[in-house]
């Protein structure tokens, strides 16, 4: 409360008059493009056509272009010719590669379906238990895993994803973001053999043995 009544009012009026002459913050969007960060892509989502079918033709171009490899394909293509599903590589991998080759015009790498060496998942489970299976503490988990294995093996990352509920792509993104984390070399310390050289049954058995159960091998 000042001594002279009305000074607050005068201040307010002066403020609005100054605002009147200041540059405006509104962006006339369709005429003037919005000023966003260069790498901004908005939210990724698949669009449907007017018949309700997915417009995605599983051409894998987006997956190839994705810098953090967070995109992968799965499902049915728009013409129903091509079935992609998570599961054993031998059931779909060949047709999938054929289709990707046909659509993209070049071979499409698919690291997440390559064979990965089996790891000692009991170790990973211990680490997860210590961190309460909390996806919010992913960095500490990954650091502990790296301390245990010397690097971050794909098998360990898959186990972390399975147990903590976090997406593999996110874990991979976190792991590949930090310089002090190393996403692992191919050779397996636990089996000592190159998994690509193994027969399918041997490979599955090795994985199942490392996971401590026979369920996958039985299936």
């Amino acid at each position, binding site marked *: 409360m000042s001594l002279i009544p009305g000074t607050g*009012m005068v201040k*307010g*009026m002066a*403020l*609005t*008059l100054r*605002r*009147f002459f*200041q*540059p*405006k*913050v*509104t962006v*006339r969007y369709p005429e003037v493009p919005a000023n966003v960060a260069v790498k901004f892509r908005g939210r990724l989502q698949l669009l449907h056509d007017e018949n309700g079918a997915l417009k995605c033709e599983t051409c894998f171009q987006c997956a190839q272009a994705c810098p953090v490899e967070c995109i992968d394909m799965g499902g049915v293509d728009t013409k129903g010719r091509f079935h992609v599903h998570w599961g054993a590589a031998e059931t779909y991998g060949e047709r999938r590669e054929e289709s990707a080759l046909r659509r993209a015009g070049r071979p499409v790498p698919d690291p997440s379906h390559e064979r990965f060496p089996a790891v000692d998942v009991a170790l990973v489970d211990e680490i997860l238990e210590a961190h309460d299976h909390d996806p919010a503490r992913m960095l500490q988990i990954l650091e502990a895993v790296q301390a245990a294995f010397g690097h971050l093996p794909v098998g360990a990352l898959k186990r972390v994803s399975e147990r903590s509920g976090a997406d593999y792509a996110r874990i991979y993104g976190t792991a590949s973001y930090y310089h002090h984390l190393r996403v692992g070399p191919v050779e397996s310390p636990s089996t000592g053999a190159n998994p690509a050289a193994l027969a399918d049954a041997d490979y599955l058995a090795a994985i199942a043995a490392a996971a401590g159960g026979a369920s996958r091998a039985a299936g």
Partner: protein
Amino acid sequence: MAVVARAWGRLTIPGKVLFTVLPLLLALGLALAAVVGLFGGAIVDLAVQYGEVVRFLASATIILLITIPTAFLIIFMEMKIIAFMNLRIGPDRVGPWGTLLSVVHGLKVLMKEDFTPSGADSLVFTLAPVVVYGASVMTLLVIPFAPGLFAQDFNLGLLYFFAVGGLSVVGLMMAGWSSFNKYSLLGGLRSAAQMVSYEIPLTLSVVGLLLLAGTMSLNQFVENQSGWFTNWYIFQQPLGFVIFFIAMTAEANRTPFDLTEADSEIVAGFATEYSGMRFGFFFFAEYVNVFIVSALTVVLFFGGWNAPFPFPELSVALDPGGLGIWLLVGIALGPVVGTLILAAPFILLRSTMPIWQALVAGFVLLNALVVGLVLAWAFISFEWVAGLLWFLGKTYAFVFTFVWMRGTLPRIRIDQLMGFAWKWLLPAALLNLFVTAGAILVVGR
């Protein structure tokens, strides 16, 4: 007959409308021509004989007509100015810079359902907006716009203004009462209480001015303030002006005194049950009121149509007939040559601009130049044009102030509103009156 029916059937809807309207217009024109041809002399005689009546009818019609564009303009100003004060752009889609948006608002209001609640007193319900709007428009009859440009000049002008302006309270009460809704009734009573309370300091604040001017004719007020701007009554009645301005804000229901239809708090006060154009009339009346309030402020305190300084006497003698055949040549070639000359800098200096854009720019510049020259010539040659421009300039400065206040000030509480009127404005108005009267006794006018 069948041929006509088939031809009619082939017409599109606009064609049907055209073929219906054109013969009607033609018949109307013929009838008018016949009336003028047969009784033209008699009509002119009558018009001369009842010149005052004709003048009144014409001015009333014109004033009724100019209120609509005035309201549109002020609504647009309100949207745009408040948007600018909020760092927004405001309307910019309909028309150039969004200028047609308020017209679109008007059309929208026209097209909405005109609803009367069951149980409402439909006659009073219908008449209420008419009374409110009529009261606003009728006050304009005594406002002098320019020398010679006023509807009526009579020696009780100011009293008439306040008397007719007070009628709008009746309209608001009618609206509140006839809506058959207790909230409308409360809103009507509330606005009536506000306007009646502020009527008193408003009228008292002008009494000092009346003592000074010795007249109630608004034209006389303006003529008293001619010459330098120091003659304006604002310099003799500063306190009176402050009281008048505050009370007028309350009378026009403008922020910070817009409790009658506090948009964000009560639904719409007395206008709760109104829809369509009936609501539109309340809405328009509010904005016409803003214009009227500003106009009266200018007339009473800011010299009306007087320039702030004695304008130098200039005269431009134009004799287009003296040019002879060169007049025709000038009319034919002037626009083309002017456009080319004004487009030349764009063509020469801005190589990225296509030629047609440069030509359009040149044409627009030429038009602006010509309009400016014509306005300047009219300003110099006709007293009423200069007066009208000064008057409208001052008036819209006050309209801007009202909008500016609306963009800034928060609404006050109803008890603060009443307390302010009775405890501050009324004593201040009385003080102003007594001091003015004493000063006149001591110093003389």
